[in-house]
């Protein structure tokens, strides 16, 4: 009897937790939706940039945090999205159509980039993918006829009818980010995420479970490239002008900061990491070299002090039971009942 009662209560509070989480998500989305009507144009830009980076980091985290492969071509794939979308629009393709197009193109390219993963692991893979990523950026510099070379390329800005430019860009970014986070979270919670982790920990041994390690490794590369390019196309819309130097180490290192400060292999780490990195950029933007120093130092501190990233702070807080107690009170039960 007592045990059955306890189960009912835990079931009840688990549902309460689910409800609270859903409520928080809806409120957060509503607040984000209201942002263009409340914030000035500078803050809206910062928020928009945060969301763009959060989507990019979502893909990077999938590759680095979940499948455990150090692929360092992510900034270049992001560039493919920004350039690809702008160039396709010049050819008359509507912006909203270019989003999935660049995603598919970069996803395919990312699978090719991931092919060294057949033979290489660890930092050998890191160096091979870094080299390929740099080669892509070099190619963007070299193909002057199409990309404008080092001088850069103007991006035609798409606006939803009846909404002003920056608000429209923001709404599109918000919609894409919400869908991307929802879908990636759904798939990582389920079978796909668990398989990725199995492959990560077992390597080739996962073959004995009937899982093709290679297929999942390449799938992780492809998906991360797909998401990176989508974020890149949004980035192009936000910046309205792109040039190759935007996508070199000065972007790759902040992306690593976002993954690791947020928390590699977590669900909300990309969002928190992106917010952190963008705030850092904006705080230090007039300081030039100090900004780079701050980035380097923050990356080092984050790795040394918080191997689990900022997300692990929230987890510590959650596991400290203070929230559990609050929820227990709300569902009308007390701790003694639960333990009884």
């Amino acid at each position: 009897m007592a045990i059955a009662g306890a189960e009912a209560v835990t079931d009840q509070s688990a549902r309460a937790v689910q409800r609270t989480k859903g409520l928080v998500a809806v409120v957060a989305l509503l607040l984000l939706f209201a942002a263009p009507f409340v914030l000035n144009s500078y803050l809206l830009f910062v928020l928009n940039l945060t969301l763009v980076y959060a989507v990019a980091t979502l893909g990077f985290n999938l590759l680095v945090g979940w499948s455990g492969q150090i692929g360092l071509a992510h900034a270049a794939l992001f560039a493919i999205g920004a350039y690809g979308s702008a160039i396709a629009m010049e050819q008359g393709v509507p912006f909203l159509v270019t989003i999935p197009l660049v995603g598919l193109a970069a996803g395919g390219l990312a699978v090719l980039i991931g092919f060294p993963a057949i033979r290489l692991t660890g930092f050998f893979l890191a160096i091979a993918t870094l080299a390929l990523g740099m080669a892509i950026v070099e190619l963007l510099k070299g193909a002057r006829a199409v990309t404008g070379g080092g001088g850069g390329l103007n991006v035609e800005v798409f606006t939803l009818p009846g909404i002003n430019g920056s608000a429209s860009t923001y709404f599109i970014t918000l919609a894409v980010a919400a869908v991307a986070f929802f879908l990636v979270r759904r798939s990582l919670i389920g079978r796909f995420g668990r398989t990725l982790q199995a492959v990560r920990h077992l390597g080739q041994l996962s073959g004995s479970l009937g899982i093709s390690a290679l297929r999942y490794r390449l799938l992780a590369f492809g998906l991360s490239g797909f998401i990176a390019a989508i974020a890149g196309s949004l980035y192009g819309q936000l910046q309205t002008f792109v040039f190759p130097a935007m996508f070199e180490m000065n972007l790759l290192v902040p992306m690593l900061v976002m993954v690791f400060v947020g928390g590699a292999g977590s669900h909300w780490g990309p969002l928190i990491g992106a917010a952190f990195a963008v705030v850092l950029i904006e705080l230090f933007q007039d300081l030039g070299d100090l900004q780079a120093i701050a980035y380097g130092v923050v990356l080092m501190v984050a790795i040394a002090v918080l191997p689990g990233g900022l997300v692990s702070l929230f987890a510590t807080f959650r596991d400290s039971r203070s929230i559990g107690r609050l929820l227990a009170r709300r569902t009308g039960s007390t701790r003694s009942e639960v333990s009884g």
Partner: protein
Amino acid sequence: MLQTVLSGLESGSWFALLGLAIVVVMKAADVPNFAMAEIGLVATYVGTVLNAAGISFWPAVVVTLVIGTLLAIVIDLALMRKLAKYGHFPLLLMTIGLSLALNALIGLIWGHEPRSFTAPWSGNHLDLGGLDVSWAQIVTIAAGALGAIGITAFFRSPMGAQMRAVAENRETARLVGVNAGRLSAIAWGLGGLIASMAVMLQAQSTLVSTHSAASLIIYGFVAATMGGFVSLFGTFAGGLALGIIQQLVGTYISTSAQFAVALLAVFLVLMLRPGGFTKGMRLRDV
């Protein structure tokens, strides 16, 4: 053609030395070090400042090498040691963060304008039967070869043997009484010394800046990749070959293709011979 090969050997010596610095740390401490060029650059900048302040050339060189060595040891003790238990990735990221921070710090203190380290022989040339050889080139190539021989000799000494044992199997080496921590500090110090030598050699021949460090480290990694991150000989030969290929590409194709060719070289080596191109040609003990 010969002239091009000669300048290739010169720049190849910088790449080879930096590659050796990376491999030495890799061997003993198991860290892929992206901050090596910046460590060398910090030391070299201190040297140029001393030189400009009127301190004569050789004392400035000695101070530069000492600073490079000490800086690397401090980095190992203060930053790397605690992270070793988390594996490769945090260490790799730590060196990336460090290279970014050091690079910016150099820019903050000394600015981003290119500088050179003027040697007593700077600007002097020799004419060898139509071949125009600068003393800077002779010094660089000779110092590169000497550095490589020195490191090879070091790895054959008892301490070098211990280092190889640690690289092979850290736990077993420690069980038989090898002090792995001390060896890692020594390897970092040695790496810092060689890296400052590489950057200083570059600075006495041409200009160095915060931007040149960023490309130097890539070339160093290309050289190290060619040696499979293990072989000292493979790394040295790979660095020289890279320098020559790069100069030939610059002369006969285009200077803007140089970087792309170096990247292509890394990729091909990693795909075709992940163990480095000298693997299989078993040179004893190297």
